[in-house]
C-alpha cells in the first residue's frame, strides 16, 4: 500500500509540478510586491519588477531575505495581508534577542497542517493511529504543527507537549500510542526509559517523526531499537511555516520538500550564486502559497544537498539531505535556536566580557549548554553571597533570552583559549553533522 496523504500532488509529474510552482511564484511575487513595502523596495533596488518573473527560471532574479531582515521588520514589517485576516502567530528567537514572529491566516495554517499530515502518512499514519505529540506547544512550531497534521490525518491526537516523562510513558502504554512525534533527543531519552522500565513489549509504537534538531544515523538506529519503531526525520523552520517543510519517506534517504508550497534552492553562501543539483551549499526557501508571511528566497543558513534522484516511494518532490552544518554561527540546542550574540549581549549587560566560550555537549542524548566567561573587576565582589546572586541573575537572563537553561561558569581572565587573539566562541562536542 502506498502511503500518500495527497497522492496527486506528492507524485505529480515533474513538468506539471514545475508549471504549478511557476504559476504560484508569479502570483506570489505580485502579492508581496503589492502588499509589502519591504519587498517592493528590495525589488526596486535590485531593478526587478513583478513582470520580470515569468516562472521558476526567473527566481534567481529576486533578492534574498535574511534573518536580520526579519528582525529589522519585527513585528509587522513583512505582513502581506491585513492583520485582521491572521489567526495565529508562532515565534522563534532571532540573532540578538529580538524574536522572529511569523503570522498565519487560516489558509496558511491549513497548508502547514497538510504538510505535516503528509509526513505522518509517509511514516505509516492512518486515521486508526494514536499520535503522541511531545514537541513543545506554544510559540514553538513543533507541537502545533504535528498536532494539526495529526488532526488532518484523523489520528487520535495526544497533545502531550514536552516533559513529564512518567506521564508520557503512562499514556504511551495505556492509550496505545502508535506514532511518536518529538525531538530525537527526547525520543532517545524515552527509549532509554522504555528499556529500563521493561515497557518495550507493552507499548504499541510503530513509527516516530523526529525533528527540530540535528541527529545522526547512529542515533536513529538506537532510537529504532529501543522503541521498536521506524524513525523518520522531519525538517522545517518557523520562518517558512514550521515542521513539515520537508519530511522523510520509508526510504529514509533524505527529506522530500513539499515543493507545491516551498521552492528550494541551493546557493553558494559566499557569492549567492545558485548551485546545480547535487552540490553542497546553503538552502534557500521561497514560500509560494503562504498568504500572511511569505518569505521570498529566505536564506536558512543550513548547509545541505538537494537530489532529484528517483525515489522508490514514488514521490517526485526533490529530496534534501540532513543539514550538514550552518553558514552562520547559530546553534540548535534542545531544538532551540541559539546565537552566540544573544549570550554575549547578556554577559556584557552584566559587566562580564566578550571573552566567553559556549560549550555544547550531549549527555545521555540530551543537549547541555555551558557558558564559560572570564571574570571582570566589574562583576567581581568580595562576598560569596553577592557573587552567587550575580551569577544567578545571569543564568536567569540567559534562560529568558534563549528559552533554555545554560550553566554559567566564571573563569580567570585569559584562561579561555584564543586563536589569533580572539576567543574560540563555540565548542560543539556533539558531532552531529555527518558528511
Amino acid at each position, binding site marked *: 500500500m502506498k502511503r500518500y496523504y495527497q497522492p496527486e500532488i506528492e507524485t505529480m509529474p515533474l513538468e506539471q509540478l514545475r508549471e504549478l510552482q511557476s504559476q504560484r511564484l508569479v502570483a506570489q511575487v505580485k502579492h508581496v510586491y503589492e502588499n509589502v513595502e519591504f519587498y517592493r523596495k528590495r525589488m526596486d533596488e535590485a531593478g526587478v519588477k513583478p513582470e520580470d518573473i515569468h516562472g521558476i527560471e526567473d527566481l534567481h532574479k529576486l533578492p534574498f531575505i535574511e534573518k536580520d531582515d526579519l528582525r529589522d521588520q519585527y513585528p509587522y514589517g513583512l505582513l502581506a495581508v491585513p492583520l485582521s485576516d491572521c489567526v495565529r502567530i508562532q515565534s522563534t528567537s532571532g540573532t540578538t534577542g529580538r524574536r522572529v514572529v511569523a503570522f498565519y491566516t487560516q489558509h496558511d495554517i491549513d497548508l502547514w497542517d497538510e504538510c505535516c499530515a503528509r509526513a505522518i502518512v509517509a511514516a505509516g499514519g492512518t486515521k486508526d493511529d494514536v499520535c503522541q505529540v511531545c514537541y513543545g506547544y506554544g510559540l514553538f512550531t513543533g507541537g502545533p504543527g504535528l498536532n494539526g497534521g495529526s488532526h488532518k490525518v484523523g489520528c487520535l491526537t495526544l497533545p502531550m507537549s514536552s516533559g513529564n516523562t512518567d506521564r508520557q510513558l503512562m499514556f504511551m502504554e495505556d492509550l496505545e500510542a502508535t506514532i511518536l512525534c518529538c525531538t530525537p533527543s527526547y525520543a532517545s531519552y524515552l527509549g532509554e526509559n522504555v528499556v529500563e522500565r521493561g515497557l518495550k513489549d507493552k507499548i504499541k509504537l510503530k513509527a516516530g517523526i523526529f525533528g527540530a534538531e540535528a541527529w545522526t544515523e547512529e542515533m536513529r538506529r538506537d532510537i529504532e531499537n529501543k522503541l521498536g519503531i521506524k524513525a523518520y526525520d522531519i525538517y522545517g523552520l518557523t520562518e517558512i511555516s514550521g515542521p513539515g517543510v520537508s519530511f522523510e519517506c520509508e526510504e529514509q534517504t533524505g527529506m522530500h520538500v513539499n515543493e507545491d508550497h516551498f521552492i528550494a534552492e541551493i546557493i553558494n553562501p559566499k557569492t549567492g550564486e545558485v548551485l546545480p543539483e547535487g552540490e553542497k551549499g546553503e538552502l534557500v526557501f521561497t514560500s509560494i502559497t503562504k498568504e500572511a508571511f511569505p518569505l521570498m528566497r529566505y536564506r536558512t543558513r543550513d548547509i545541505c544537498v538537494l537530489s532529484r534522484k528517483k525515489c522508490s516511494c514514488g514521490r517526485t518532490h526533490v529530496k534534501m539531505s540532513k543539514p550538514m552544518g550552518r553558514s552562520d554561527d547559530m546553534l540548535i540546542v534542545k531544538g532551540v535556536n541559539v546565537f552566540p550574540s544573544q549570550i554575549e549581549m547578556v554577559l556584557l549587560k552584566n559587566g562580564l566580557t566578550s571573552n566567553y566560550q559556549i560549550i555544547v555537549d550531549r549527555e545521555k542524548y540530551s543537549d547541555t549548554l555551558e557558558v564559560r566567561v572570564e*571574570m571582570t573587576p566589574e562583576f*567581581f*565582589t*568580595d562576598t560569596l553571597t553577592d557573587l552567587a546572586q550575580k551569577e544567578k541573575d545571569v543564568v536567569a537572563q540567559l534562560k529568558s533570552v534563549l528559552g533554555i537553561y545554560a550553566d554559567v561558569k566564571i573563569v*580567570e*581572565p585569559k584562561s579561555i583559549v584564543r586563536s589569533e587573539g580572539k576567543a574560540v566562541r563555540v565548542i560543539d562536542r556533539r558531532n552531529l553533522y555527518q558528511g
Partner: protein
Amino acid sequence: MTIKQISIFAENRPGGVLNVVQALAGVSVDIRALNVADTKDYGIIRMIVSDAEKAEKVLAENGGVFIVNDVIGVRIPDAPGGLSAVLSLLAKKGVNVEYLYAFINTSGSNACVVLRVNDNEYAQKVLVDAGMSLLTDDDIKKL
C-alpha cells in the same frame, strides 16, 4: 577607621592561590592575614597585606581580577571570650557580619579580627563607642 582588604578571584585548580602569593612575595609584600572562601568552581582569596598599594600594582601586572575594599580590623584580647565580646556587641546593635577572619599579632598579646559588615560607618561607631580599638592601615604596616 578601616583597613584595606584585597580580594582576588581564583579558579578552583592546582596552583590557584600559589600564583597570587608568589607575585606578592616577588615584591616583598607580606601577608598579614589570609582567608579563602570557596565554592564548587572558584574561590575568593581575601587578604590584609603589609603594603596594599604595592600589592595592587603587582596584582594588576599579574593580570588577575581583584578588588580592594575597606574592612574593619578590631584588636581583641588573645584569650577565651575575646571574639564573642565583639560579636555580641554587633549582634545587639543589629550589625550583620558578612564574613570575618582573625589573626594573631605575634609581637603583642592581641589578636585581630577582620570584619566585613553590611554598614561600615555604623559598625565602626558601635565598636568605638564601646571602647574597642580599631586598626588603621598604618598599624598594619607596622605589625
